[in-house]
């Protein structure tokens, strides 16, 4: 099976074939080496893959496998030592720091394991934060933040501080924040790492909803059952892609939730 589309560069043993969309992310032979004085750490040793619009990818691997480095590179927080990274056909290596900040601001939404919300700042203002850096006028900023919070089902708690919210609610605020500038890609680094299993499934439900609306989602996790909510799994090991496969039986969050006992909050 050969993937369709001109930008598909996969040469792995298993290739995803379901998606017919345009490649949003195309990575060609990317290496990343950290120079720690005497020793050199090869975090990535030649990664080539592409992700199309509308995909829902789970990246898995043990710690040290290079998955976090890979996420940092596609999140434009870090640059590859060698190789090419094309984000929506733009070679990221050509961009200066300011342009990279712009990409992080408008094209990519980040969700972190530790939520990373600003303390003593309301849910609404946390959500609004990326819009401050996007040259959007005040009324529009407010409206977008409210919309984003509605989308994750938190319209009731917009004035709450993170300390007044549960872990799941905090992660929803973080997702709302990631969505507020309407990015084309959502990057989530262990988004369920700090959550209980029911809340984790709820968060995955939000991701599946967003994906169904066309948002490209890339998720890093080490939990196998969480990865089953995605449509494609990429497994990293020793800085290389070990396996890249489509999920044949995707878990559907809304159905899984029905089988779980309800927990009183």
């Amino acid at each position, binding site marked *: 099976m050969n993937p369709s589309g001109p930008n598909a560069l996969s040469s792995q043993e298993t290739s995803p074939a379901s998606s017919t969309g345009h490649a949003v992310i195309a990575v060609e032979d990317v290496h990343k080496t950290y120079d720690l004085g005497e020793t050199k750490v090869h975090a990535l040793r030649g990664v080539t893959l592409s992700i199309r619009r509308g995909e829902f990818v789970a990246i898995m691997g043990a710690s040290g496998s290079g998955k976090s480095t890979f996420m940092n590179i596609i999140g434009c927080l870090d640059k590859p030592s060698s190789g090419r990274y094309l984000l929506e056909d733009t070679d990221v290596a050509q961009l200066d720091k300011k342009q990279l900040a712009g990409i*992080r*601001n408008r094209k990519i939404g980040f969700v972190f394991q530790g939520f990373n919300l600003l303390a003593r700042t309301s849910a609404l203002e946390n959500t609004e934060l990326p819009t401050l*850096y996007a040259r959007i006028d005040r009324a529009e900023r407010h409206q977008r933040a409210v919309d984003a919070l509605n989308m994750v089902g938190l319209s009731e708690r917009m004035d709450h501080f993170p300390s007044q919210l549960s872990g799941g609610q905090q992660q929803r605020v973080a997702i709302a924040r990631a969505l507020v500038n309407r990015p084309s890609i959502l990057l989530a680094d262990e988004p369920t790492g700090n959550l209980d299993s029911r809340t984790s499934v709820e968060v995955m439900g939000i991701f599946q909803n967003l994906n169904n609306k066309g948002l490209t989602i890339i998720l890093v996790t080490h939990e196998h059952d969480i990865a089953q909510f995605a449509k494609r799994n990429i497994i990293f090991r020793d800085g290389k892609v070990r396996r890249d496969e489509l999920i044949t039986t995707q878990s559907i969050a809304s159905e899984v939730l029905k089988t779980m006992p309800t927990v009183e909050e």
Partner: protein
Amino acid sequence: MDPFSTMRTALRALARNKMRSILTMLGMVIGVGAVIAMLGIGQGADQTMQKQIANLGSNMLFVTSGSMNLGGLRLGWGATKTLVRDDVTAMVKECHAVAAAAPGTQTTAQVVYGNDNWGTRVTGTTPEYFEIRTWPFQSGASFTEDDVTTAANVAVIGDTVRKNLFAATDPVGKTVRIGNLPFTVVGVLEAKGQSPAMSEDQDDTIIMPLTMLQKKITGQTWLRWVMLSAKSQSASYAAKQQIEALLRDRHRIREGQPDDFSVRNLAEFAQAASETSSVMTLLLGSIAGISLLVGGVMIMNIMLVSVTERTREIGIRLAIGATESDVQHQFLTEAVVISLLGGALGILIGLVASFVISTTVGWPILVSPMAIAGSAAVSMAVGIFFGYYPAQKAAQLDPIDALRYE
């Protein structure tokens, strides 16, 4: 980020650590407050002095008889007996830049009126004296040229003498005694206050014809001083040179020998006074500089602590799309807000302190808008200067490291 949002973010960050922000401001508050208060006092004193000098007449010149070297003893100004009335006549006649001249000498004496007596300075001079000093009368008038010629028993009294001897009654026409000589009071001078140049109560005096004082009281024929007015303020230097040349000639002082007199013009007094006040200003300026430096270092210190504490926040901001300059502006704004608020508070405290000092001690205070605007500008500059490095440090953080920072 737009300036409004930047400002709001900065204010919130400062409000989050209220106590710390206030303590950080304290250096600026004290520095700027001290500067405003001290500048107020300094400028007030300076202005009063300049006003008093102007009050004396800025084209006035003052000749005193000189020092004499008596076998190694230098007797000080006023010791020589060479300055006489003929010199004064010659000055008016021959020095073109001189408008008028009043010779004078003085002593101290006890003045008696009725049961009261008062020790005061007795000045002997001519009627020109009042013109040169532009000294108006509150009642009566000057004695005349004839009174000088005839050595008449008449006198003009200063306001302090009037207060001490006459209280509420009008002294004009009354008779006072000095020793056993009776004098008819013909005029009372307006109060003139403390003299800046000679630091004495100018109103504590009784003035009579020169001839009277010389013949009946001191028995001296020489003068202690001559007061002159130049034709204009710009002519006062020329007048000084002309007088010096004339007196050296008349006193037959050979080349290379020192003068037996001294000529000063009030422009020089004014200059000396403003030199004193500029030394003061320099001193105050350096104190201000030091306190602002300390205030600035405090701000820098706290901003560095703040950057370290908020490393994670900076990481979040960078990850979600803040540019380096966004982060830099945010921290720079915080530093400037602290320093400006501190400066504003300092200005307020300085104004209050000035007011309290001027009302309790009675010193004149002048806080110029320039001093306030200058303080505000300096506060802002301090914030930018000392906030720059911490802000730069924040902006240079690596987002990945910053996000991992615990």
